């Protein structure tokens, strides 16, 4: 299991990287953390003619507060950094909560935020988390840049709206509105194994005289379809409702019925996954509403 030969480019600036991307086009691959790409190359299921290594571009490693109270995160920020960073813990606790579920510590040392997003593995945690948070991605090419909303970015398995001449450079996380709660839940066969199903939830309550009702519910599932699945039907059933066990059960059932399209593999049948969607949605919403109520 040794990789096939390739040309190697180690740009030190985004500009240089974009030049390489523009020149080399399709057969080149971007090397971020490499924790999904390199095993695939070791199996020789990927044999890119060239790798463009982003690990030497300092301007892609950062976590900054944004003016709106959210966060701006450089695409090459390591998962292990996200895991330890106080700003993340404070402003994006949902991201922090998902970290231990991403493979193992040795993988998170190298794995990056942007890499996980661009790889678009439907069983990955960070795509679902960013969809739940309503994150936006900054994408650059030589001509300029554009912002893409997380929920539109993912097309299907390993496929995104990124064009071959484009580079994902930054993730923008919006601030958590007041009276918001969050939860991350995942069922995997063992620590670090692919999630059979996972869910990231962020809910917001309003504060009406009649008591707190759900103003917004963003629930995104992993391993429940060909991309991170945003639960629109579940949200509909919740908006305007008091977060009762009743309402949560209804939302969880709606999610399992209408918001996901799970597949079968050797670890889990589609039926089992649908069942887990219901179970985890209920657990996540319960926890998220509790947090929102405090």
């Amino acid at each position: 299991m040794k990789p096939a030969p390739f040309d190697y480019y180690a740009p030190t600036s985004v500009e240089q990287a974009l030049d390489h991307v523009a020149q080399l086009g399709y057969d080149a691959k971007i090397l971020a953390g490499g924790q999904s790409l390199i095993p695939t190359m070791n199996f020789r299921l990927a044999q890119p003619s060239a790798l463009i290594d982003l690990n030497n571009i300092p301007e892609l490693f950062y976590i900054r507060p944004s003016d709106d109270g959210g966060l701006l995160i450089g695409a090459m920020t390591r998962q292990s950094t996200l895991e330890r960073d106080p700003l993340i813990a404070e402003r994006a606790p949902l991201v922090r909560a998902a970290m231990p579920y991403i493979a193992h510590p040795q993988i998170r040392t190298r794995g990056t935020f942007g890499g996980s997003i661009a790889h678009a593995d439907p069983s990955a945690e960070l795509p679902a988390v960013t969809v739940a948070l309503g994150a936006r991605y900054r994408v650059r090419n030589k001509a300029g840049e554009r912002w893409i909303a997380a929920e539109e970015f993912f097309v299907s398995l390993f496929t995104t709206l990124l064009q071959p001449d484009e580079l994902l450079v930054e993730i923008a996380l919006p601030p958590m509105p007041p009276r918001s709660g969050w939860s991350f839940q995942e069922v995997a066969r063992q620590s670090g194994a692919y999630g059979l199903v996972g869910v990231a939830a962020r809910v917001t309550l309003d504060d009406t005289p009649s008591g707190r009702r759900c103003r917004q519910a963003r629930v995104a599932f992993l391993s429940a379809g060909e991309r991170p699945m945003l639960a629109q039907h579940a949200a509909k059933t919740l908006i305007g409702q008091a977060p009762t066990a009743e309402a949560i059960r209804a939302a969880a059932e709606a999610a399992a019925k209408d918001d996901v399209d799970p597949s079968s593999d050797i670890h889990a049948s589609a039926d089992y996954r649908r069942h887990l969607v219901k179970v985890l949605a209920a657990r996540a919403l319960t926890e998220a509403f509790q947090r929102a109520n405090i």
Partner: protein
Amino acid sequence: MTNQFPITVTVNGVRYERTVEPRLLLVDFIRHELSLTGTHVGCEHGVCGTCTVLFDGQPVRSCLMFAVQANGHEIRTVEGLGTMDKLHPLQEAFRETHALQCGFCTPGFLMTLVPFLEENPKLSEGEIRQALAGNLCRCTGYQHIIDAVKLASDKMGVKP
């Protein structure tokens, strides 16, 4: 283009200058170019943890990096811990608790644990099990390894 890259890597405090093909995996570089064969290869797809080394002080899977990426970086391998006559406290603890049998996975466990113990002096069994979850051992059922970590954290005491 000639597909060879000159790199400079510091391993266990020693500076090495070599020329490598980009596709050369870091673990093969460490084992076969530098003859530091204490780091072992178990799966080459990043799941078993056997090839764990410290890269700039943090544990990584050396089967999931290319040697060329180590250019200008610091690596620490099991050879950089104790010696046969003077074992590192963690190595001593492994011996005293019989935390290794065939010993093939052991260097990976040691390199995962060294920074972990330095960061977390006092540990619950649950935390230890989580910290070990990225390393597979087929011989011990992990029980004596967990004993070793507890013993080592006593030996190493609270970090300054």
